[in-house]
């Protein structure tokens, strides 16, 4: 188990944000990983939503079909390297909560994207890049910065963004 890294990758549940995962996977070609796609999400403070709505309900609402397909595609692309891939919610900006979360869920690496702007579709979603950077250092997970290439064109189809990321090289003329 020791050689499998549990990597936390921030996401906003858009297909576009899966580019972070892809870039990370390509920068570390030999590492076996367990991917945790984490999203900052404010679940609100009403007692009914705290008691009645589970994490799965929230995730179900947040993950759209294309995002799941994108995840499945990444998983089948890196089948030998990704042992597991799942989504999780970070429900507070509180530093202590985050440090406990890292410890509790034994996150070994944290990917911090640069050049990616979060475009949350849901009201509760917030950008966790900065608080990840701030809180990870004390507890131990290694921070891996990933610099994203600027998006080539605005995606017409939402699946565009995980394809055509490189300069168009491959072709057989």
């Amino acid at each position, binding site marked *: 188990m020791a050689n499998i890294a549990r990597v936390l990758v921030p996401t906003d549940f858009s297909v576009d944000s899966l580019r972070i995962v892809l870039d990370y996977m390509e920068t570390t070609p030999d590492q076996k990983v367990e991917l945790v796609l984490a999203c900052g999400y404010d679940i609100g403070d009403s007692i009914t939503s705290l008691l009645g709505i589970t994490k799965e309900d929230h995730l179900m609402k947040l993950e759209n079909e294309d995002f799941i397909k994108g995840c499945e595609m*990444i998983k089948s692309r890196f*089948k030998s390297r990704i042992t597991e891939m799942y989504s999780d919610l970070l429900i507070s900006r509180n530093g202590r909560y985050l440090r406990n979360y890292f410890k509790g869920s034994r996150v070994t690496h944290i990917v911090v994207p640069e050049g990616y702007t979060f475009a949350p579709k849901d009201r509760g979603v917030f950008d966790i890049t900065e608080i990840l950077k701030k809180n990870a250092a004390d507890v131990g997970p290694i921070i891996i910065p990933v610099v994203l290439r600027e998006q080539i*064109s*605005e995606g017409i189809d939402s*699946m*565009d963004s995980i*394809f055509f990321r490189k300069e168009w090289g*491959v072709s057989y003329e």
Partner: protein
Amino acid sequence: MRNYNKILYGLIAILVIYTVSFVVFIFYSITNFAFTDFYKRLELRRNLAAERIFNGKSSGIQWSLTYVEELDKQKEFIVEFDKDNRIVHSSGFDKDLWGRIDKHATSNFKIGNTFYATKYYLQKDKHFILGVSAENYFYTHHLNYLRNLLIIAVLLGVLFVIVISLFVKRSFIKPISELIGEVEKIGSENLYLRLTVGSEKGVLGKLADTFNKMLTRIETSFETQKNFVSNASHELNTPLTSIIGIADLALSKERSVDEYKHSIQKIADAAENLEKKTSALLLLARTGFENNNQTFKPVRIDQIVMDAEMTVKAINEHFRIKTDFSMLPDDSMKLKVNGSAPLLQLAISNIVSNACKYSANNTAYVALGAFDNGVLILIKDEGIGIPEEELTYIYDPYFRASNTTNFSGYGIGLPLARNIIKMHNGQLSVSSSLGKGTTVRIEIPTIDPRLLRNMRLA
């Protein structure tokens, strides 16, 4: 339909005959019973009268009055006759009846509503006929009532049978005639129409579904032909024109041998090009006329995409295709779909050549990826795009977007591709932004690996 009516009328007739004969049988049995029963009662009274008259047991009267009720218009009569059957003496007897009476035994008969029961007696060497007559109240009143009741019941029953039959007929025939009406509307010019499959899961629903599948196949096959013709007329013209041009130019005046050689070489090149195009077009056209699910085989989608691209390039050498296979899965099993390779190749090459045709740089970007139970093909261009309000019509045959007037084409490729993808239980969706480009997304379900293993074992 006429046959159907015949069966229906036959059924109605059988039901009516059954009802009528049933009623007649009931009426007959009850009448019969009423007669037998009444004659028995008459015989009892006749015997009582005989006891009283011949044996003088008058005390019996009391008994009979107590226990045997007087019948309606009950009359007794006695006739004495000689051995030549001539009436000697009679009391209360209507002589017209003499002929009907059995002179040596019992006889029961009825005249009008009056019933008679008579018997022969021999007393002190004298011959007597003793009889009782009475009116059968049950026969005159109750049976009439029963008869009327049964007639009304029969009429109502027949009416009921007819109404129900017509209702059933209509409810049977209505969906069928609707189906017929819909099918009649479909001709070779509007093969894109489909029958409405109602919510019912019955035989008719299946029928409509089967019709629809058949229509998709027919439409695909029609479109394949049209596609070939449109491609051929368009693509074969260019090399032909150049061959004719070069030949005309060469023949226009005397030239040196080298010049002739040069011209002939050019003609040969153009002809070769023409041949390449023809064979590529024929490859696309040979989409098998036995395209049904039975001929679907496991095929690798990446191979098909590459073949399709090769074909597009063979048909038009100006087209450039850039392929992103970076998301190709580790496991090649995830790329196997159950399908017909020529059809899928036709679909993809159509979309790719459209993507090239409608973009200034003649370049299409193709990407391929596999999710859990399907493959996804993205074909993207940076071309003229499709106006948003026209996106809903792009699957209609012969529809061409308003901004395509400068491009040749017939509007067959996309509907054809969509039909082919539909035949493979897949989905084709187009998203576009005017002036920026178009992305076509194709999703086709892959074969369940377990299924594939079973197929191999079998």
